[in-house]
């Protein structure tokens, strides 16, 4: 039974009792552990945390709830293919923490990427034993076709088109090409392109050029580990374990 098939529909989910462990495909990799998760400050950091770079189409979003894994919004990536790394299945559930926690309330975590229905994406899948999102930081890009060139280009979660990629970082269009404001009445509705987007898409980096740049960066930061399609099982969604910061201070001039 597949993860997303067990869920009810969009806004009024019926909660299920099955454990994620019984319903998810789990890889046998032993390399990724939670403490391998690190800050992602640049594309090399991102690649070091990436098991595979894949693309496909989100067919639908559905909700699940598990006492440990918590509320999950499961975006089903269909017709998935790997640009880099290994992908064993053409359909991939991407289960992000967030969604209804009762019939009256919903959990939402703004830092985590939101994937919209009927939208093509290029996704960096983490090699970590993830819990919040299977996506590396915000390295998930909507794919759109630039009508002038007929080539695919990438749109970042910020709504801006990707215009460059190097070890120093991603570069984006000055103005967004899609509106990114989320309406909880239909949080997974595909976001419309803004007026004037075509002009910005025309200046965006093509997907082919982006992947070529990734290929170059992979020489310095090769992919490692494997992707796990299920969240880590050593965590409970509604508990934060507080840990003190070491006492130190900045030393500004």
């Amino acid at each position: 039974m597949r993860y997303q098939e067990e869920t009810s529909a969009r806004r009024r989910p019926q909660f299920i009792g099955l454990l994620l462990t019984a319903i998810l495909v789990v890889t046998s990799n032993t390399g990724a552990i939670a403490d391998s998760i690190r800050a992602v400050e640049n594309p090399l950091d991102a690649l070091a945390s990436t098991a595979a770079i894949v693309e496909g189409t989100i067919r639908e979003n559905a909700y699940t709830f598990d006492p440990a894994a918590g509320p999950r919004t499961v975006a089903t990536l269909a017709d998935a293919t790997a640009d880099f790394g290994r992908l064993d299945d053409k359909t991939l559930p991407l289960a992000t923490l967030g969604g209804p926690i009762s019939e009256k309330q919903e959990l939402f975590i703004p830092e985590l990427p939101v994937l919209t229905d009927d939208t093509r994406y290029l996704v960096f899948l983490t090699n970590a034993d993830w819990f919040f999102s299977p996506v590396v930081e915000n390295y998930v890009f909507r794919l759109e076709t630039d009508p002038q060139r007929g080539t695919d280009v990438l749109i970042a979660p910020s709504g801006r088109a990707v215009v460059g990629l190097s070890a120093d970082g991603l570069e984006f269009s000055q103005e967004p090409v899609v509106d990114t404001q989320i309406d909880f009445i239909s949080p997974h509705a595909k976001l419309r392109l803004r007026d004037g987007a075509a002009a910005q898409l025309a200046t965006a980096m093509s997907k082919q050029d982006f992947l070529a740049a990734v290929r170059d960066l992979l020489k310095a930061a090769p992919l490692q580990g494997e992707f796990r399609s299920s969240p880590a099982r050593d965590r409970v969604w509604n508990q934060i374990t507080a840990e003190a910061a070491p006492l130190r201070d900045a030393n500004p001039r």
Partner: protein
Amino acid sequence: MNRKSILAGAVLLSGFLMASHAHAFSFFKCNGNPVVWGSPFQMVQNTLSIPFGTPPESSLDNAIGRWNGVQGMANMVSKAPFITIGSDLSIGDGQNDVATTGRAKLGGNSGLTFLIHNLCVLSSSWVEADVAVANDLTFGRVAEDSLTTTSGRSTFIHELGHAHGLGHAQGFNNMRASQPLPLVGGPNETVDVLPDDARAGRFLYPTGNGEVNLFASAQRRTSKDKIVLNNSGTITVCSKGGDTITLFSTVGNNGTITATQTERWWVSTSNQAHNGGTTIFQWNGSTFPANTVITRQVTFKLPALPVGTFFVFHGVDVLHEVQESREDDNNVREGVLLQVNNC
């Protein structure tokens, strides 16, 4: 207004590039209506991870104070009169916890805000916000002329923006999705609510009041949406004067009223010469619209200067023509040195 016409021996040689960033703030909606708090909310400090009197607490206090310092926005967030002392905090218990934790427990993020809202039908409101910030960040004051990706102070102000109901917005603001985040200048606190953030707060929680505040910054946002230093490295010139230099200069208007005032650029051998120094250029009558950040490229001839190495400063409203809600963010030390040689 009491503007004077002083040029300080320098000449504006060329025009300037202007980059004005209109608002881009983002918030969450339900059926088209903003999702907001129905009443002010309190954050419960976890003193195991944020002990009293420590830099993390100072960062938290700064973030709360800065958000509440936005005039025209209702004071929405405060510290609860009670604390938690244990290591286990709960999400979904109706209590707004704030703590630090290991980065790995945040999925590698610098901070996460766990927001709970009433299920969206016609409208919705926030009912809980738990904030967790990575404990490997640096929570002390951030140098005005630096670019840091590890600021706990910036992270707290960002996460409390989420707690108010703001989403990510890519501008010269604190709600950018990733660090480095821009700073204000001055010898004191450099992490503050920025114009786009303030505008969002006034939109979601309006009081109708206005605010006047200008600030200078040593950072700018590039056309490819990166936050970088305005100027860096060392510029070498001759002591006799007459050399031409070009500097990026950023001014933000954090308020609701367009302000016209006088800017000044100066140098000093002291890195704390936020006032005084030797003027190298002055510009009368520059205007900054409300809720904007403008970066210009200013080119001018230097006057004669003593031989030495100088820090470069840029100030806004240097003649105190504008009554501001905050005056200690007007002058900034840029990230560049001026090396004056004997020639």
